[in-house]
């Protein structure tokens, strides 16, 4: 161990500056962000507990009419969409909003970590969390009798585009509103989209005029696309992918334009 002395041993602090290699910085940042998220009780409630409860509850109790077939076949794709939204949008918005408020983003901005690398690390952390969520929810859904169909590539593409769309919107909110406002708004949006985005309530239950509008939401596109593939074995759901791509481009561009670091 190097002794950090009391002034008698000189040279301990002698300058030897340098940035760590980029992959190491990004890995360290992503690991820390993931650790912070998994340590946070409210975040776990949002990303793990609520989706799991909804999946179990609505699959086993006949509360909502989910159409013909097993309830879990309708619900599982919607819950996967909800899991993506909870992490990429709600969780990321709240965490980033408070990092901005408490000067974490500011402090990191003067560290050797470039801003783009910080954003890359955040994305990596979101993806790691989603993989954990999806693994858990998939196991539970199988236990409830889920029988998914379709092309895994289409599923991955939907999840990735959905993540991009929700990340853009979450970061836009975190980078422009006050942390408390982000906290409130992100939770409210989560709740509204949970109800009105085809997650557990089929969009067909809404009046037809409302359906057209609700169908354009990123959560509806994601849950509808996942359902087309996983429940009905459809090919590439181009319409839903298109909607998600538009949200992703618009959200990320707006976040890039208006995000304030302090």
């Amino acid at each position, binding site marked *: *161990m*190097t*002794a*950090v*002395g*009391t*002034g008698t041993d*000189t*040279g*301990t*602090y*002698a*300058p*030897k*500056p*340098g*940035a*760590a*290699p980029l992959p*190491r*910085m990004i890995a*360290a*940042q992503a690991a*820390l962000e993931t*650790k*912070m998220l998994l*340590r*946070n009780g409210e975040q776990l409630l949002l990303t793990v507990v609520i989706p799991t409860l909804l999946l179990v509850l609505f699959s086993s109790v006949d509360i909502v009419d989910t159409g013909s077939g097993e309830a879990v076949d309708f619900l599982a794709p919607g819950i996967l969409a909800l899991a993506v939204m909870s992490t990429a949008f709600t969780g990321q918005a709240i965490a980033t909003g*408070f*990092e901005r408020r*408490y*000067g*974490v983003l*500011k*402090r990191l*901005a*003067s*560290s*050797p*970590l*470039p801003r783009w690398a910080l954003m890359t690390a955040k994305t990596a952390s979101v993806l790691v969390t989603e993989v954990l969520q999806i693994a858990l929810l998939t196991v539970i859904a199988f236990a409830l009798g889920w029988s998914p169909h379709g092309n895994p590539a289409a599923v991955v593409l939907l999840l990735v585009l959905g993540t991009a769309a929700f990340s853009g919107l979450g970061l836009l909110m975190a980078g422009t509103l006050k942390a408390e406002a982000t906290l409130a708004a992100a939770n409210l949006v989560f709740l509204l989209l949970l109800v009105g985005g085809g997650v557990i309530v089929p969009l067909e239950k809404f009046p037809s005029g409302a359906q057209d509008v609700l169908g354009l939401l990123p959560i509806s596109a994601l849950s509808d696309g996942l359902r087309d593939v996983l429940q009905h074995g459809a090919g590439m759901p181009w319409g839903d992918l298109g909607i998600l791509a538009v949200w992703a481009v618009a959200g990320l561009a707006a976040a890039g334009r208006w995000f304030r670091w*302090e």
Partner: protein
Amino acid sequence: MRTEPVVQVQALVKRYGGKTAVDGLDLVARAGVTAVLGPNGAGKTTTVETCEGYRKPDSGTVRVLGLDPVRQSGELRPRIGVMLQSGGVYSGARADEMLRHVAKLHAHPLDVDALITRLGLDSCGRTTYRRLSGGQQQRLALAMAVVGRPELVFLDEPTAGLDPQARRATWDLIRDLRSDGVSVILTTHYMDEAEQLADDVAIIDAGRVIAQGSPEELCRGGAENTLRFTGRPGLDVGSLLKALPADCTAAELTPGSYRVVGKVDPQLLATVTSWCAQHGVMPDRISVERHTLEDVFLELTGKELRA
């Protein structure tokens, strides 16, 4: 020691909305410890944050280690260490966790365990940042500024609100940084801190540097000093005044207690004592009051309260 400046600010102007925070500020800081003093709202933090690359000058130029902090930020950031006035840490992170993380962003960091021990942060244990005491949070921010072995560290009010022990530990660390060749730019409200630590002091007011020099130079120059002695009551002050240089004043404040105000140097002391000898006066309790940095500061920036 005339080395290349570590910080060079020329004619810096920075406005927020209609308010001018920094108004044509010039500052040169060389190797060693430079203290930036000024009343609240004088422009200290804005100046330092411009050097750190956080703010873009409205006009003027800023060079830090010869680099433009905004356009050459990628090159500059690994070479500097930054301690913000507050915050900068994930609220759910432990002290050692955050410090280890910042160390991982650098190529040749200090030994984290040793730094933790040195700054007394081992007492933080598993406590997360939001539950640390203000002093622990300050020391963690200081540790984060130095862990990457920078050439230059910016410390924004590093001892604000610290208890005397923590303050001393911070001072000791700053002295060690200096003796190991790390340059330090430090903003502070504490005059004794600047007097103790700084090779060079810049006093900022209303967005400009109004005085700069070593603490000794600042205390010597401009400000008048005081010589006091006691003796028999009712001495002839007029005769004393005639013996003194023209710009001095002398007065008997209370019976037997005399005060001479002026440029106090060995010559003046000799003049007073020989005048006393001529008049058969034993000057008792003769004392010279050197002006402190605080006197100079208040003289330059005024005594009224600032917003």
